[in-house]
């Protein structure tokens, strides 16, 4: 198989972005944007799929063209293909195609239809660059590029101040992480003399005695990963990012972009293992983030926010897995998570679409009759997320937890990992609970709902611009919207990608684990863990650890689901009573531990104040000093003006005097 085709994977979406951008300019062309975008992403998927078996062991580099080359530093547009890349390409292009397909219907009628697909194409360009990058700088390009697209898509409804603020926040928080990442790249270049992934990894594998600089690299890179993958303490942007259109949340903020951090750590594992503390730190941060975000998700009312926190929590799992040196588990969870989380977001989008932008859990109930397909699709997604036995999420989560527990209970059992494993199990329980809390609330119980106040997406922009509705008064068109848009099922074509995703959410886990596909893929990439498994598999309660963990986590997830069913379906007043009883905790969680407020008070406001102070200093001190210096000649001039008598003869006198003195000087001094 010719690897040359590989390099078109990023550039077809880039071309699509340009074409879609041109489609923006003419109203008639707008409808073309979606097919172009879908086609470009799908062809990427096809190319990747064609190469599924043709990747040489150890990966291959496909050079494309030169980028930055100066003075021994070289970073080019060349692509590195190994099985890990392929997994990521399947996820990115596969989910990308499905989401774009869905969005082609979801976004219909929106004024920014072509703009949306421009950004999505651009995102795929950046994301594929990220996962295919042969060097860290190109990876950084993808890294920042996806950040940009995230910024543009979160701020897609740019007239909404909250969307603009969220977009800004996402970009800036990511930038903080990116700084660490950039510094990490610098340090890699300084220590290994190259930014090429493969060369750096080979060099790292040959490091015998890691110097301080080398052990610092993983920590710097980690910062970037935490920012992009929304881990503590840089997770704050992701919940706000739900301001973007729902397909975007599904694609970028659930399935692909946010997993870039996991991918990066897996990819650079040989560098991360250089420091004995790097991966444990990753694991700790991942574990803490998982439980932290899960607790917040318990008490949120906004569907998308719940999913956002659940994404953060699941990303925490992935970090936990990678940190426990189970890159297979981490990538596996990344893979399955992409299916079920995309599914969940898209079904949430359908609900939102049906209810004219309504997202509040308290304002909807019993929708199962109105939207049966959506209901059961979401049910599948929830099962997978909750880790219900034999769903995709069950296998991947189990693999991670087993790996963590093995580190905790194995030969050189580390209590840290034991604690993390227990934390992970607790999180699994919370996950099952909040996932089904949502589902039961939305689809079960008595049928009652309120339509949304603000008309997201199609509706809002539909009657703002074009479609001949401009002239109608606002109120009239609102009434019309109310009338037309009762809750309804989505068309089949729109549900088609959801069905595919649902199939994946159920079957992908079982297939990938039991065919050994995921393991063989990861183990033959740079993310492979060397050093071998411990000879004696750890045991728990007298059973093989894996088996024991499966049973425990199945039980936990079923327990969580049952509890949710009780509180949020069968006996909702009990839930309300519990909430009243623990009001302070609920308020704390509902307000997300006040992290945003603390950030505002501790970072944003002081910085802004500093800006004000500096500006004052600039004007009042520095500029004043300059003015003061400018006053010196003026003061001298005030003194010297006395000499200017204004009498012509006075000047003549001075001139004659000067001439005489000069002459005498020449005469007596020069001789």
């Amino acid at each position, binding site marked *: 198989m010719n690897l040359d085709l590989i390099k078109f994977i990023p550039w077809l979406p880039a071309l699509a972005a340009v074409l879609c951008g041109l489609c923006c300019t003419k109203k008639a062309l707008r409808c073309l944007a979606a097919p172009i975008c879908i086609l470009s992403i799908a062809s990427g998927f096809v190319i990747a799929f064609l190469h599924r078996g043709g990747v040489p062991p150890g990966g291959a580099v496909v050079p494309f063209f030169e980028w930055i080359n100066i003075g021994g530093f070289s970073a080019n547009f060349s692509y590195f293909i190994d099985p890990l890349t392929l997994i990521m390409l399947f996820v990115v292009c596969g989910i990308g195609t499905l989401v774009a397909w869905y969005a082609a219907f979801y976004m219909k009628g929106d004024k920014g239809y072509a703009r949306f697909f421009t950004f999505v194409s651009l995102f795929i360009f950046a994301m594929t660059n990220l996962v295919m990058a042969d060097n860290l700088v190109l990876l950084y390009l993808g890294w920042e590029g996806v950040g940009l697209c995230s910024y543009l898509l979160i701020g897609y409804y740019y007239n909404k101040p909250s969307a603009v603020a969220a977009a800004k926040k996402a970009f800036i928080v990511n930038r903080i992480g990116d700084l660490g990442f950039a510094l990490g790249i610098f340090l890699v270049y300084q220590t290994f003399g190259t930014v090429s992934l493969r060369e750096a990894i080979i060099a790292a594998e040959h490091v015998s005695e890691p110097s301080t600089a080398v052990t610092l690299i993983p920590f710097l890179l980690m910062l970037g990963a935490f920012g992009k993958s929304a881990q503590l303490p840089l997770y704050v942007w992701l919940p706000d990012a739900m301001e973007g259109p729902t397909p975007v949340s599904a694609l970028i903020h659930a399935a692909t972009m946010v997993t870039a951090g996991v991918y990066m750590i897996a990819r650079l594992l040989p560098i991360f293992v250089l420091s004995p503390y790097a991966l444990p730190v990753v694991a700790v941060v991942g574990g803490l983030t998982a439980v932290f975000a899960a607790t917040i998700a318990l008490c949120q009312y906004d569907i998308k926010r719940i999913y956002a926190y659940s994404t953060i929590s699941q990303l925490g799992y992935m970090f936990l897995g990678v940190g426990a040196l189970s890159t297979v588990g981490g990538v596996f969870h990344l893979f399955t998570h992409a299916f079920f989380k995309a599914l969940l977001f898209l079904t949430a989008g359908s609900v939102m679409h049906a209810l004219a932008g309504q997202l509040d859990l308290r304002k909807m109930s019993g929708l199962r009759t109105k939207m049966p397909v959506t209901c059961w699709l979401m049910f599948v997604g929830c099962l997978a997320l909750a880790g219900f036995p034999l769903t995709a999420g069950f296998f991947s989560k189990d693999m991670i937890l087993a790996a963590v527990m093995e580190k905790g209970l194995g030969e050189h059992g580390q209590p840290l990992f034991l604690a993390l494993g227990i934390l992970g199990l607790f999180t699994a329980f919370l996950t099952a609970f909040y996932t089904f809390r949502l589902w039961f609330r939305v689809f079960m119980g008595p049928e009652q709902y309120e339509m949304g106040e603000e008309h997201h997406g199609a509706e809002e922009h539909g009657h703002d611009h074009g479609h001949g509705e401009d002239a109608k008064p606002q109120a009239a068109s609102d009434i019309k919207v109310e009338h037309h848009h009762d809750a309804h099922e989505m068309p089949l074509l729109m549900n088609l990608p959801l069905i595919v995703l649902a199939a994946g959410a159920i079957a992908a886990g079982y297939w990938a684990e039991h065919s050994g596909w995921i393991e063989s893929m990861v183990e033959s990439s740079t993310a492979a863990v060397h050093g071998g498994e411990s000879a004696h598999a750890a045991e728990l309660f007298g059973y093989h650890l894996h088996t024991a963990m499966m049973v425990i986590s199945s039980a936990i997830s079923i327990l969580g689901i049952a509890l949710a069913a009780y509180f949020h379906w069968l006996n909702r007043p009990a839930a309300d009573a519990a909430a009243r009883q623990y009001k302070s905790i609920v308020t704390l969680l509902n307000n997300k531990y006040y992290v945003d407020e603390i950030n505002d008070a501790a970072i944003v406001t002081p910085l802004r104040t500093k800006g004000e102070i500096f500006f004052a200093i600039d004007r009042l001190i520095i500029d004043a000093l300059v003015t003061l210096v400018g006053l010196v000649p003026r003061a001298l001039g005030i003194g010297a003006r006395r000499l200017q008598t204004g009498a012509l*003869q006075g000047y003549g*006198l001075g001139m*004659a*005097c000067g*001439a*005489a003195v000069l002459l005498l000087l020449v*005469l007596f001094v020069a001789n």
Partner: protein
Amino acid sequence: MTYALYIASVVGAAALLLMMPRPGYNPRFLGGLLGAATLGGLWLYLSREMPYETGLARSAMACYYIFSAIAIGSAVRVITHTRPVYSALWFVMVVLASSGLFLTLNAEFMAFAMVIIYGGAILVTYVFVIMLAAQAGDADAADSPEYDRVAREPLMAVAVGFLLLAALLSVAFNPNAIVPNPAARGLTDEQIISGDGAILPNRLDAALAGKLAGSANGISTEELAPTRQLHNVERVGLDLFRNHPLGLELAGVILLVSLVGAVVIARKRVDEPGDPPASTTGNA
């Protein structure tokens, strides 16, 4: 010897100070006497050791001393006279005397040009203006106005002036100072003092002319044929047009500009305090 110059400068300064116009008693005559004595004394002292070898030289020297004395004396009167018209007329004397000096330097053209342009044209303009001002001003006043009768800071002016003079003379009489030593130019003393007793021969001798012209001025030797005796006017004309064409053009431009400027100034109406406002509608 330089001390003689300094002493003469100081005494001359005192003399001039006495002659400056001032209110009250004016020891002008006394000052004049003192000044003449100083000048004479200085010259005597300077010429005491001068060798008079030929009569011609003596006559040339006499001419120099006479014209010089007239020029200096008239100049003193120019600056000490209280009536502007007389000052102007004394200035004519200065011009005439310096023309005489030019003649002793074999610069005939300059001499006549000086008399014609300065004495004839420029000074007449001055007298016109003086008359105009006197007529327009307080014509009925018996005496000349106060600003003509009282000098402004005469002591300071004289002191500075003679300081400058002392400095200038030190330079002029100091063989090592700015003036290059004639010997340094490769000219012998015989060449310097020759012919009819002035500093240089009357006519350029051909060899010297060729040498100097070829080296310094860029005039080829052929052009100054040895048989052709050039007159002063011709030489000045040649020099002017050969070596300073740009300067000549610029001088023309300057004259034109000043002509235009004079016209512009002359037609400018000025706000006069007493004038009715209607007259100020010009381009003042």
